[in-house]
């Protein structure tokens, strides 16, 4: 065992270290170490970024609601990034947006958001830069349009779908059109397994002129002449429609947050 002692680290450094630990570590191990650690960990500073990722993936929805309420209260308005799966209750979405006015990145994955909920919450999300609503199957192009109209600072949107959700369905460009007409500042857009065709993509990259990365893996209705696009939009990197891996893209939407 190490002889080195880290006990004279300033609290703000401890705070940074704590924010990099997993949820269970932060809630159980850290406060059990000693009284001063327990005090540091309840500080809002330690909860500016909340990642309920793996924990919420297969957790009871009531517990997710309870956890979000507790941690967002701790963050006391300073929450910047949130990633959570499987939120089911409408009032939890409302609670999140009402208590997190500095939210920059919100990732609601496989959540029970509807067009109606989006309509209610998006006016309060005007500061958001990155939004992820992947596998939220209850929202439509209408929700995306509302988001685009309200969230003028949006630079990244991720709306991945699962092939099972789209198999056998006809081509639909309404989501692509909604994005193209309301989100001119997008730099990163992820639309895997979207039902659009070539026309939808053309609309997107002719309107979203700041786009750097467009992920259309699994959008089988899309046929692109990539060489031609490269000439007209040299900065744009398109992933797909065929499967391919891009590390830069992964670092924009990293696993942890």
């Amino acid at each position, binding site marked *: 065992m190490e002889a*080195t*002692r880290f006990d004279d*680290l300033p609290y703000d*450094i401890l705070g940074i270290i704590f924010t990099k*630990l997993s949820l269970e570590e932060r809630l159980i191990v850290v406060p*059990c*170490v000693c*009284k001063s650690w327990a005090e540091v960990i309840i500080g809002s500073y330690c909860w500016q970024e909340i990642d309920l990722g793996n924990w919420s993936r297969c957790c009871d929805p009531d517990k997710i609601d309870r956890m979000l309420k507790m941690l967002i209260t701790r963050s006391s308005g300073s929450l910047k990034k949130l990633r959570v799966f499987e939120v089911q209750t409408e009032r939890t979405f409302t609670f999140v947006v009402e208590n997190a006015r500095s939210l920059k990145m919100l990732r609601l994955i496989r959540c029970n958001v509807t067009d109606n909920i989006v309509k209610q919450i998006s006016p309060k999300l005007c500061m958001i830069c990155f939004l992820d609503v992947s596998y939220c199957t209850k929202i439509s192009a209408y929700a995306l349009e509302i988001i685009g109209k309200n969230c003028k600072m949006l630079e990244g949107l991720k709306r991945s779908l699962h092939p099972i959700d789209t198999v056998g369905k006809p081509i639909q460009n309404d989501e692509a059109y909604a994005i193209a007409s309301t989100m001119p500042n997008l730099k990163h857009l992820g639309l895997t397994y979207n039902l659009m065709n070539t026309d939808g993509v053309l609309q997107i990259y002719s309107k979203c002129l700041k786009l750097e990365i467009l992920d259309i893996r699994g959008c089988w209705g899309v046929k692109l002449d990539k060489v031609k696009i490269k000439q007209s939009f040299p900065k744009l990197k398109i992933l797909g429609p065929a499967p391919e891996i*891009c590390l830069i893209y992964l670092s924009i939407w990293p696993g942890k947050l």
Partner: protein
Amino acid sequence: MAKTPEPKRTISLKPCDGDVIEVSPMIAKQMQTIQSFIEDDSFIATTTIIPLPNVTAFQLSKIIDYLNYHSNSKAVADNVKESTKKFDEEFLKELEHDKLKELLHAANYLNVKEVLDFLCQAVADLIQDKSVKFVRKFFGVVNDYSVEEEEDIRRTHAWAFEGVEED
């Protein structure tokens, strides 16, 4: 203040135990502590030597190495990401725990966010998934709870992880 200062070449930093190290203003700027000094008086900053009584030559050159490498590899290509990862791994491999801790203090003193963040992640990786006992020992922290108090704290959020794996 109205006049723009003469184009500066390098900033001279003097660690507590070694020779002066010259850094480009671009690198110096990332050290908030130095940056404030440059802002106060950029002429003096480029002509005099800035003493760093709390930082050793080893720590300073490690921090500069890190900043140099990372500012040169800001590009976005995938292969760059790969080599950056390798650099980071090598960087940590050379650091024993006490060196890591000292470097954390130095990075904190110089207020270099990028390095601080990287080192904190490294410490977090060392204690992730470890027991309370291990963490106490690792940090040299003395347990100031009674058995009952500690059990109470442990119970407070246990509801969240019940059914996963306790203890």
